[in-house]
């Protein structure tokens, strides 16, 4: 589902952030991406979201070579991926409901379907009853869960998460991991960047480890 082949990402200012990354995630596979701060985890995930293009190499997502995809086709690729960002990326002037509904409205779902799905997604992250609140009136952990609800609301075949449990207590973290496991069981491919070692050891899943931009365990 996600293939990296000799991927290099170079920034003018910082040099090579990712060096020769190659790995392969099958459909329905779940993996953790770990590494020290500044190892390049977020950068790797940004390449999958095509927020940036890689300097060299090939990234194939759901059989499409991302470096060959035209700008006008990117939205349709992004709709296949649910992204959870380290900094949440919520719209602070919209309610929780509107934030979670955004991917559905963009994909052109009708009013009733949107209602139903948003409520279901909020329930999954234990945020029922907070629909009308604004993000800034929520705790960090709650905002994070709004981001998670938004990522899973249109049931994408791929979920990419950058520190999804960074602001959650162990209990909520376990709940969210459970949610990811459920998705995995119906065939969703999941890649989670984290340095929460206990979380990784609990789940006993595949681990990709980055050290200074190089993949050391995969």
């Amino acid at each position, binding site marked *: 589902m996600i293939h990296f082949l000799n991927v290099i990402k170079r920034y003018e200012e910082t040099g090579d952030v990712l060096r020769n990354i190659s790995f392969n995630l099958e459909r329905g596979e779940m993996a953790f991406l770990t590494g020290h701060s500044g190892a390049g985890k977020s950068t790797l995930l940004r390449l999958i979201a095509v*927020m940036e293009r890689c300097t060299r190499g090939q990234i194939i997502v759901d*059989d499409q070579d991302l470096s060959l995809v035209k700008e006008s086709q990117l*939205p349709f690729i992004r709709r296949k991926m649910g992204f959870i960002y380290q900094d949440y*990326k919520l719209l602070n002037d919209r309610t929780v409901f509107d934030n979670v509904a955004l991917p559905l409205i963009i994909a052109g779902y009708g009013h009733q379907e949107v209602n139903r799905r948003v409520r279901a997604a909020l329930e999954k992250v234990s945020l029922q009853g907070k629909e009308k609140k604004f993000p800034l009136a929520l705790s960090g952990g709650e905002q994070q869960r709004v981001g998670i609800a938004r990522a899973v609301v249109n049931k994408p075949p791929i979920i990419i998460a950058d520190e999804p449990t960074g602001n959650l207590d162990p209990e909520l973290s376990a709940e969210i991991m459970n949610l990811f496991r459920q998705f995995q069981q119906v065939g969703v491919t999941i890649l989670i960047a984290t340095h929460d070692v206990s979380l990784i050891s609990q789940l006993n899943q595949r681990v990709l480890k980055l050290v200074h931009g190089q993949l050391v365990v995969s």
Partner: protein
Amino acid sequence: MRRVNKNRIKKDPPIKQVKQEKRQTTLAGGTLQDKLIAYRELHTKVLFSSLGRMIATPFSSIMTVVVLAISISLASGFYVLVVNIHQLTGNLETSNQISLFLRDEVSDAHAKKLSESIHNNPRVQNVKLISKEQALAEFKEYSGFGSAINTLKVNPLPIVLQILPKNTLTDKQGLADLLKSFQQMPEVDIAQLDLQWVERLQAIVEVAKVFAFIMNILLSAAVLFIIGNTVRLEFYSRRAEVAISKLVGATNAFIRRPFLYTGFWIGFFSAVGAWFIVTLIMLILRGSVERLSGLYEGDMHLLFLTIPETLFLISASSILGVVGAWVVLFYELRSTKLQ
């Protein structure tokens, strides 16, 4: 939903074409009919939410609307003025009267005889003699120099014969010949065809028309740029929203839509505001125009913007708003970074 599940279970298929992918994902939301309904819902919602946003944060959009309404009203007010003058000169065309200013030494009695002989001319329909005294009285009334004229010792005004040619005499050449024959009479000082100043006025109106046309083109450019700039500022203030929408799969068309509607509303309200300003000015002018109309014994009445003209004004301005917004967004969306 069932589709997606099926997709997940099935093994990786060989590399698909991008086109196929697009079709697949756009249909993921349900049947085509559901899609169309959702699309219409979205349009209506965005149309009014962009209006709502303009009203909620009124400052920059209202400033823009006021500036545009005033500029548009200047141009369309000028246009209405030209149309009115055109109407006026149109009415005057029928008064192809000839005025003969007689020499100072011609006596009243001689003038009377002359007027009778001219009346017998088959090409003349009517002759009206205005004596020196009558001319002075008339001049006093209309010029407003009443008391100043009273101090004059001699009446400086000549005797005037106003001649109305036969209605059958409509061609310019015939009129010019008639004028020439009067000019050659020894009693006549100046023979003047009133048509001449009508022609001059008409020429001025023609110039004004061209000027109004150029003004409207310049104004269209101004509307385009001013609305474009307002939309650009709005776009900057909502960059975060644009970036996030893109990240969750919004197409450029989706992102553009609310801004195009903002451009539409600004254009629309500017034109409506301009219409009100022009109509108000015309209402204020109405009294004095009626007095002017009385002076010309004409059936001149003030022309307002007609319904087709009003519709044209409003739709042109709205369309320019949309186009201005579109051009700006085309460039902005290209350069938007996603981080």
